[in-house]
């Protein structure tokens, strides 16, 4: 309950701030701050939270450049209307998403967004911040895996 009140207050602050300055850099900074506060509260949970959906286990190896390239093309076609890598648009910036969330959580959020935003704690908190629910783009498992590979190249520990 405390968290949601915080979130609402933060959102209100963010909206008014936006309107006043019309500068998105500021709003981005706030959103990122807010997101990291969710992260802080739930770090232990987040690391193991696999989300809800068809993906129960993903084994990661070295980054597969071909798969990542396929993921990048898919990202442009299916995701980039709402997500950019380095800035918040409709949804969160995705740089470093693989550091914040488990691979399973990311793929479930892509493939099963309706149930995720209804039932998963982190997804619900994100919805409260971003307001627009994640769209279901009917992404297949293979495609979601390729997107994950692309996001891995955008991790803070990645050299890409």
């Amino acid at each position, binding site marked *: 309950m405390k968290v949601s009140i915080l979130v609402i207050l933060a959102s209100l602050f963010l909206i008014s701030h936006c309107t006043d300055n019309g500068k*998105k850099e500021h709003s981005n900074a706030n959103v990122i701050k807010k997101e990291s506060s969710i992260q802080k509260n739930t770090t232990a949970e987040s690391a193991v939270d696999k989300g809800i959906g068809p993906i129960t286990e993903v084994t990661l190896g070295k980054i597969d450049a071909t798969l990542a390239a396929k993921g990048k093309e898919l*990202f*442009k*076609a*299916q995701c*980039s*209307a*709402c997500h*950019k*890598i*380095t800035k918040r*648009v*409709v949804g969160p910036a995705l740089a470093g998403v693989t550091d914040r969330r488990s691979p399973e959580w990311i793929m479930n959020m892509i493939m099963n967004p309706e149930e995720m935003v209804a039932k998963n704690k982190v997804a619900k908190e994100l919805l409260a911040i971003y*307001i*627009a*629910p994640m*769209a*279901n*783009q*009917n*992404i297949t498992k293979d495609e979601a895996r390729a997107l994950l590979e692309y996001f891995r190249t955008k991790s803070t520990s990645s050299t890409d």
Partner: protein
Amino acid sequence: MKNLIKSLLAFSFISVILNGCGNGGSTNKGAISGSAAEKVYVAPGQHDEFYAFLSGGFSGQLAVYGLPSGRLFKVIPVFSVDAEKAYGFNEETKPMLTTSYGQIPWGDAHHPDISQTKGELDGRWIFINENNTPRIARIDLTTFETAEIIEIPNSAGNHSSSFVTENTEYVVAGTRFSVPIPQRDMPIKDYKGNFKGALSFISVDPNDGNMSIKFQILMPGFDYDLSHPGRGKSHGWFFFTTYNTEEANSLLEVNASQNDKDFIAAINWKKIEAYVNNGGGTKMPTKYAHNLYSDKTHSATNTMIKEVLTVNPLDVPGAVYFLPTPKSPHGCDVDPSGEYIVGNGKLSANLTVHSFTKMLNAIENKKFAGESYGIPILNFEDVLAGTVEQPGLGPLHTEFDGKGNAYTTFFISSEVVKWKLGTWEVIDRKPTYYSVGHLMIPGGNSAKPFGKYVVAMNKITKDRYLPTGPEVTQSAQLYDISGEKMELLLDFPTIGEPHYAAGIPADIIKANSKKFFRLEENKHKYATKSEAEAKVVRNGNEVHINMTMIRSHFAPDNIEGIQVGDKVYFHVTNLEQDYDVPHGISMIGAETSELLIMPGQTETFVWEAKNVGVWPYYCTDFCSALHQEMQGYVRVSPKGSKVPISFTLDGDAVDAE
């Protein structure tokens, strides 16, 4: 005064009756209506058992209902423009309404018929005819959208249409009005012997459903009213009712009702098909439109065809016969076995049923009563299977339940009459409210009817619904026909004047219903498959905007550099890839309708920049909690302004990363 008292008395009496019923619950009437309500009740979230496609008559459209609930799901635009769906308004669908007479925004839709395989409904397509400017449309039952429209040359009042043969080899279009063929300037009084009636056989490609006119039979100048295919044993034949065999040209209500009998024309289309396949027939110069919509390009194309193959029936001996049928027959209905051909003589007291077997025997024995314009006339007694004696007044149409029963509508006596094939005895009759025209049993024009319900479509509604001024709703009525006696279950309002309808078990088509269009399969010339591809391109005074939409923004949203006098094309692609997430768009002052764009689809509207200023556009279909935020601006500068074309989203150039 006496009258007033009488009326008051009558009124009190009626009130007593009504109160009795209302209070009852345990009265007979109450019990019956209770069970009727249960039979049509489809619980929230549950699906109906049948789809019913009711022609929209003079609305030009086709309406989709559920049975038994009578709930309206969709109005499919076919022959008339529809601002709600941008049909005929967006650049993509304008070619669908092109004809040899020009761009026609309206049509008179009559007789839907669902495609068949081996005589049974296959649910792939539904065909419907346009009466006024003769055309046949094919609607794709995966998208529930009009996929194709073909114009019928040499035809006028395309009424004895659009019925399919048992493997959808052909959809048939017969003319109601005979006309000079080819058209020419001549005195109307010289009609008799000079006008002709064209019966067109349009082949249907078994793979994609595409239609093309295979041949036209140029028949004597009668009025060809309705038709139905042979099936089973009579597959290969088609039957058309005729009236005005008098060939009158004025005051037809008197002058075309002189002959005791008109004809049912029996056409052996297989024989004529073989004749034309061997090079028979005469190619005739003409002009007609063939319009095809693709759900890959999301666009329609129009082709004008310059020639049609005509056949003189006298050149194909044994292909056409006339079956004398009393009194200006209207409906021409063939039972599921293919043996019985019912002629609904609309001015006759009796219902005439012909036997296909007897017809073949008479032909084989060459027992002819005479000929008309060289076409052999069979003896009425030789082909008659039986007569339903005095079943009602003004029979129009007959359908079958697949259990040996037929159901006929009677316009004048306002009733549906159930009778038995073979014994010709009347089993039951139920009133309709009022003046019933067509009726429909799902699969009723096939070898396998689903004889659970009959829908009666009435020509007059009067007092059945809350009044809405001089024009009241059109009306259909649903009867349960699963028992010996029919039971009236439900009245429901309809659009336009429904002529005929086609019904099908929902399970045959609902699994094939398309949920959205795949973006990667979008072949529209101006498709924009990601925001990174969004652009604005000036070409003289035309500006083309490649725009995307997704919950809940347009890309780009702000466009500058438009000048007064520019013609601005908005080519808008819905990037959503999920079920039931359409977006709409319209712009202040657009002289056209909104666009309603399905996921993965591209549509175009044109906006003319008339005044300097900054003009908004927005999403017209509530798409998400942030729908009200889905908008953009176009800046219009004076002609010759130095403001360059630019387009942004959130102040930045539109890009992916």
